[in-house]
C-alpha cells in the first residue's frame, strides 16, 4: 500500500512540475529560515549551561550615579564578600586581558589570558586534564593552558615548558604547570591561558579598597537564601566600607550569570555579548517566512487537490475508506515536505556563512549538537502536512461519490476563498517587510547625512598611551608634515566615549554634563563653530577657563555666559551644539577644559589629513609613532568608521530586512505563479470559447489580473497601518528621525503589485495568445 501511495505521489510531483517545484522551493526557504534561526536561538540561550549551579551564580557589578553600571569591580572584592556575607557560598574574581607573544620583535600571536584568584577553578568547576588539582598555580610564574592552546602552540608536552608573555606590566616568563579544559558548552567566560592575579604587583600589594582600579570581573555563588536578602547585605557592606565623597553614591549590584550573554547592560562587560532583541527579531522573521511558505503550501496542495477529486471518487468506489484516503494525502504531503526539508538543509548549508557573518556568530548545522532545532523544525513540517491533509480530507468527506466522480463545482468556491485569503496574508507580510526595509534605509541614510556640527572627512584618531609631554612632542613632529592639515589632542573625539558628571539646574533636576580636555587646535581640527567669545589660547590663565556649548547655557538658564563660571572656572567661549554620541541621543550640556585641569578619560590624537594625501600621511604618522612608542603598535581608526559603529545594529537590521523581504516576496510570487498556472489550466476551455467569441488578449489577461489585484490591494490596506505602527515605535529610539511619509507605503505596495502583475500576466498572456482551436480540442 505504502509503495502504491508513494508511487502515485512521485508521479504527481513529476506531472505537476511547476506546482511541485514552487511548493517545494518555497517551503524549503521557510524551513531553512526556521532551522537556522532555531539553531541560533538554542545556541544563544544555552550560554553558561555547562556551569554547575549556574542559576545560583551572580556577577557583582559596580553602580554609581556618576558612571553607568560597570561590570568590573575592585580587586579582592570576591574575598572580601565571601568573608563578610555568610550567605555567599563561594566567590571568585578574575581579570581578562589580551596578552601578546613576541618572537623577537615580531608579534607572533595574542592570547586570551585571565588572571584569577585561588577559587576560580573550583568555582567554575573547571576540568583539569594535567597538573596538581589542589594547587594548579603554585608559583607566581605558573601558567595553566587549555588543551586547544597547548595543541596549537606546543609541539610536545607543555608541562614544564616556558611561555613568554607581554603583560601590561612588561614581559613576564611563565612555566606551564597544568592543562585544563575550557568551560563546557557556550560561555561568556573564555580563556586560553590562566595565571594568578598576584602576578600584578598592584593587586598583590593592595588591599580591598574603593580607591583601587576597577578591573576585576567578580562572581558570587549563593547558598540557598534568596536574592534580595543577599543584595541588601552586599549594599550594607558597601556603605560601611565606602566613605561617601562629593555626594556620589556608589555601590554594588548583582547580575545573573546566565543572563549575561543576552541581557547585560553593563559597561565593559565580558566581550562577546549579544542582545535578546536579536532573538526576537530573528524569531519573527522566521515566523513570517514560515507563515508565508506554509500558507503557500496549504493553498497549493489544496488547489492541486481539486484536480484529484475524480481520483478520490474512484478510490472510494473501489473500496478506499476515509482512513485510506487520509493516509494517502498525508503521505503525499509528507513526501513533498520531506523533499523540502532536505532542500532546506542544503539551502541552510549555503546560507550558513552569510548568516554567521550577519549575526557575528559561529553556528554549525551539526544535527547532533543542534538536535532540538531539528526536532522542532521537523515537528513543524509534520504539523503542516497534517493541517493541509485535514483541510483537504474534510472537504472530501462531505461530498458523496457521485459529486466527486462528476466534477469540481462544489469544492471550487470555498477552496478559492481560502486561496485568496492566504494570498492576501502573504502579500500583507511582503508589503509589511518591504515598507519596513525602505523605512530603515531612509532612517540610516538620514543619520549618515545629518549635520553633526563637526566635520569628520579624512579625520583619523589615534589612541594614545603616551605621557602628556611625549604626546605633545609627537604632535609637534607630525603637524608640519605637508599631507596633514591639522592635529589636535583631546580626551574625546567623535565615536569615542565621553566622560560626564551630573549637574543640577535651578529646578533641581539632574542633568548630565559632558566634560573633555582639549588643546587649542581641537575646534579647528573638527571645524566646530564658535558662536561667542574666544577659543583657548596659550594664555596662562586659560588653564582655569572653560568653553561651553549652547545647550549648557540653555539647560542651566545662563543669559550672559561670558560673565558666568562653571565651578569657579570662567566661561570664555560658547560653541555651537554638536552631537557627541549616536543620533539616538539628544544634545546635552558640555564643557571644554584645557589639559592642565583634571583630565577626563583617555587621551586621543585627532589628525585631519589633506585630500589625496591620505595613504602616505598615514604611513608617515605610523613611522613617527614607532619612534615614539616602539613597544605599542599604533591603534588608529577613521572617525567615519567609528561613527558607523554606532549603527552596526541598524545596518544589521537593514540587511536582515532586505533578505527577509526578498524571500517573502519570492515565496508569495511563487504562489501566485503556481495558482495562475492552475487557474489557466482549469480555464483553458473558457479562454478558448471567449477568444472564439472575440475577446481580446487584454480582456483575457484582465480576467486573471482582476482577481489578484483586488486581494493585493486589500493586503496593502492591512500591511500599511501595521508597518506604520511598528516602524514608528522603532524610530522613537532616535532623537533625530525621519517622519514616515505616504510615498513609502505607495512604493512598497506598488512594488508588490507590479511584480505580482508581471508574474500573473506572464502566464495569462501565454494562455490568451494560444490558438483557441487547440485549447478547445484539448478538453
Amino acid at each position: 500500500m505504502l509503495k502504491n501511495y508513494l508511487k502515485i505521489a512521485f508521479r504527481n510531483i513529476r506531472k505537476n512540475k511547476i506546482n511541485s517545484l514552487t511548493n517545494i522551493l518555497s517551503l524549503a526557504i521557510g524551513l531553512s529560515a526556521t532551522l537556522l534561526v532555531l539553531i541560533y536561538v538554542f545556541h544563544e540561550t544555552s550560554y553558561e549551561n555547562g556551569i554547575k549551579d549556574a542559576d545560583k551564580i551572580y556577577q557583582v557589578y559596580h553602580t554609581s550615579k556618576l558612571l553607568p553600571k560597570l561590570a568590573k569591580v575592585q580587586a579582592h572584592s570576591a574575598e572580601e564578600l565571601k568573608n563578610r556575607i555568610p550567605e555567599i557560598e563561594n566567590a571568585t574574581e578574575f581579570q581578562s586581558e589580551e596578552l601578546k607573544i613576541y618572537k623577537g620583535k615580531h608579534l607572533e600571536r595574542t592570547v586570551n589570558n585571565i588572571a584569577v584568584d585561588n577559587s576560580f577553578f573550583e568555582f567554575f568547576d573547571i576540568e583539569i586534564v594535567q597538573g596538581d588539582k589542589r594547587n594548579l598555580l603554585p608559583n607566581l610564574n605558573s601558567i595553566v593552558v587549555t588543551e586547544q592552546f597547548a595543541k596549537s602552540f606546543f609541539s610536545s608536552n607543555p608541562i614544564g615548558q616556558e611561555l613568554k608573555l607581554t603583560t601590561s606590566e612588561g614581559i613576564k616568563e611563565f612555566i606551564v604547570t597544568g592543562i585544563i579544559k575550557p568551560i563546557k558548552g557556550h560561555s561568556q567566560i573564555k580563556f586560553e591561558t590562566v595565571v594568578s592575579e598576584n602576578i600584578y604587583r598592584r593587586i598583590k600589594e593592595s588591599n580591598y579598597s574603593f580607591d583601587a582600579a576597577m578591573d576585576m570581573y567578580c562572581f558570587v555563588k549563593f547558598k540557598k537564601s534568596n536574592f534580595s536578602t543577599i543584595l541588601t547585605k552586599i549594599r550594607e557592606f558597601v556603605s560601611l566600607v565606602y566613605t561617601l565623597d562629593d555626594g556620589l553614591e556608589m555601590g554594588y549590584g548583582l547580575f545573573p550569570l546566565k543572563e549575561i550573554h543576552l541581557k547585560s547592560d553593563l559597561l565593559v562587560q565580558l566581550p562577546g555579548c549579544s542582545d535578546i532583541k536579536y532573538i526576537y527579531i530573528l524569531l519573527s522573521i522566521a515566523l513570517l517566512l514560515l507563515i508565508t511558505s506554509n500558507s503557500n503550501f496549504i493553498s497549493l496542495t489544496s488547489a492541486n487537490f481539486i484536480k484529484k477529486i475524480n481520483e478520490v471518487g474512484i478510490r472510494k468506489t473501489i473500496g478506499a475508506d476515509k482512513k485510506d484516503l487520509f493516509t494517502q494525502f498525508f503521505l503525499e504531503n509528507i513526501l513533498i515536505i520531506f523533499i523540502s526539508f532536505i532542500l532546506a538543509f542544503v539551502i541552510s548549508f549555503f546560507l550558513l556563512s552569510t548568516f554567521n557573518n550577519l549575526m557575528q556568530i559561529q553556528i554549525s548545522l551539526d544535527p547532533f549538537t543542534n538536535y532540538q532545532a531539528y526536532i522542532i523544525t521537523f515537528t513543524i513540517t509534520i504539523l503542516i502536512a497534517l493541517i493541509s491533509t485535514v483541510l483537504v480530507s474534510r472537504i472530501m468527506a462531505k461530498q458523496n461519490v457521485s459529486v466527486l466522480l462528476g466534477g469540481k463545482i462544489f469544492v471550487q468556491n470555498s477552496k478559492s476563498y481560502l486561496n485568496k485569503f492566504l494570498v492576501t496574508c502573504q502579500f500583507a507580510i511582503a508589503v509589511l517587510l518591504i515598507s519596513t526595509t525602505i523605512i530603515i534605509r531612509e532612517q540610516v541614510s538620514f543619520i549618515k547625512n545629518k549635520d553633526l556640527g563637526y566635520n569628520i572627512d579624512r579625520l583619523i584618531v589615534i589612541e594614545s598611551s603616551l605621557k602628556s609631554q611625549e604626546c605633545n612632542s609627537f604632535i609637534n613632529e607630525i603637524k608640519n608634515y605637508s599631507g596633514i592639515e591639522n592635529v589636535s589632542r583631546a580626551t574625546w573625539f567623535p565615536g569615542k566615549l565621553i566622560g560626564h558628571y551630573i549637574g543640577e539646574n535651578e529646578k533641581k533636576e539632574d542633568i548630565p554634563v559632558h566634560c573633555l580636555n582639549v588643546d587649542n587646535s581641537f575646534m579647528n581640527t573638527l571645524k566646530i563653530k564658535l558662536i561667542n567669545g574666544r577659543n583657548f589660547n596659550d594664555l596662562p590663565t586659560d588653564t582655569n577657563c572653560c568653553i561651553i556649548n549652547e545647550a549648557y547655557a540653555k539647560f542651566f538658564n545662563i543669559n550672559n555666559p561670558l560673565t558666568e563660571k562653571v565651578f569657579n572656572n570662567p566661561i570664555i567661549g560658547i560653541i555651537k551644539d554638536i552631537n557627541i554620541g549616536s543620533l539616538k541621543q539628544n544634545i546635552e550640556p558640555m564643557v571644554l577644559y584645557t589639559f592642565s585641569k583634571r583630565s577626563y578619560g583617555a587621551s586621543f590624537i585627532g589628525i585631519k589629513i589633506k585630500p589625496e594625501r591620505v595613504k602616505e600621511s598615514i604611513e608617515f604618522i605610523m613611522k613617527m609613532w614607532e619612534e615614539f612608542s616602539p613597544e605599542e603598535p599604533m591603534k588608529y581608526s577613521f572617525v567615519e568608521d567609528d561613527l558607523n559603529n554606532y549603527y552596526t545594529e541598524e545596518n544589521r537590521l537593514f540587511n536582515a530586512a532586505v533578505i527577509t523581504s526578498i524571500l517573502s516576496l519570492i515565496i508569495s510570487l511563487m504562489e501566485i505563479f503556481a495558482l495562475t498556472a492552475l487557474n489557466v489550466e482549469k480555464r483553458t476551455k473558457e479562454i478558448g470559447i471567449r477568444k472564439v467569441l472575440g475577446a481580446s488578449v487584454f480582456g483575457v489577461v484582465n480576467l486573471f489580473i482582476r482577481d489578484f489585484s483586488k486581494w493585493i490591494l486589500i493586503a496593502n490596506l492591512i500591511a500599511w497601518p501595521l508597518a506604520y505602527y511598528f516602524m514608528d515605535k522603532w524610530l522613537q529610539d532616535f532623537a533625530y528621525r525621519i517622519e514616515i511619509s505616504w510615498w513609502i507605503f505607495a512604493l512598497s505596495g506598488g512594488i508588490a503589485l507590479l511584480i505580482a502583475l508581471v508574474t500573473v500576466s506572464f502566464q495569462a498572456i501565454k494562455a490568451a495568445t494560444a490558438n483557441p482551436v487547440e485549447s478547445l480540442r484539448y478538453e
Partner: protein
Amino acid sequence: MIKLLGVSKYYQNKFDKTYILRNINLEIKEGEFVSIMGPSGAGKSTLLYIIGMLDSASEGEYYFLDEQVHKMKEKRLTELHKSHIGFVFQQYHLIDELTVYENIETPLLYQKVSGSERKGKVAELLDRFNMVAKKDLFPNQLSGGQQQLAAIARAIISKPKLILADEPTGNLHSDQGKEIMQLLKKLNDEGTTIIQVTHSEENAKYGNRIIKLSDGWIEKE
C-alpha cells in the same frame, strides 16, 4: 440479495425538496442480470449509487444479503461495499497516474490482500482479458475498449457478488461494446449478479430483466 422498500432520494433546497427517486420498491435475486433503463435525469445513476452503498437513501429501507444497510455504520458499509460490489462506469474512471496493472491491483490493496496473492490474481485476470502486453501502460495509452476491459478487470478482481455497471458501453464503438456486453454476460453465467444502466435496447437484451425508471418512479416491469 437486494431488497429496496419505499426508498426515496431527495435534495434539500432552501425552500423545497427535489425528489430524484420516489418510493422505489425493488427486489433483485442472486444471479440476476438486470438492466435499468429510462430517460436522462431519471435517477438511474442515483439508484445505482444507492444500491452500491456509495450514496444513502433519504427515506426507506435497504437490505443487502439480509443486512439492514439503512441502519449500518459507515465502517461496516465500506466493508460490505469493498468485498461484495464492483463498479463499472461509462467514463471507465481508471486512475490516470497508475498503470493498468496497478489499477487492477488497487482494490486488493484496500482489502489488505498479501503481495504474492495479489500478483497471482492480477496475472490471472490479465491473462484472461488478453492484456498481459498492456499491463505497464497508462490509461491514456489505451483505446476506449481496452480501458473499459481494464476497468471491468478491476471491478471483478476481488470476486464481488454484485457488479454495478453505469452505461458501460456508452463511450464505445459497437464492436467494442459487444465485446464488453459478452464479457458481462459470461460473468453473469459464472454466477455474478449484474445490474446495468443502459440506453440501448440491444444491450438490455443481454440481461434477463428490465426496470424502467422515469422521473424517479419505477414503471411497471
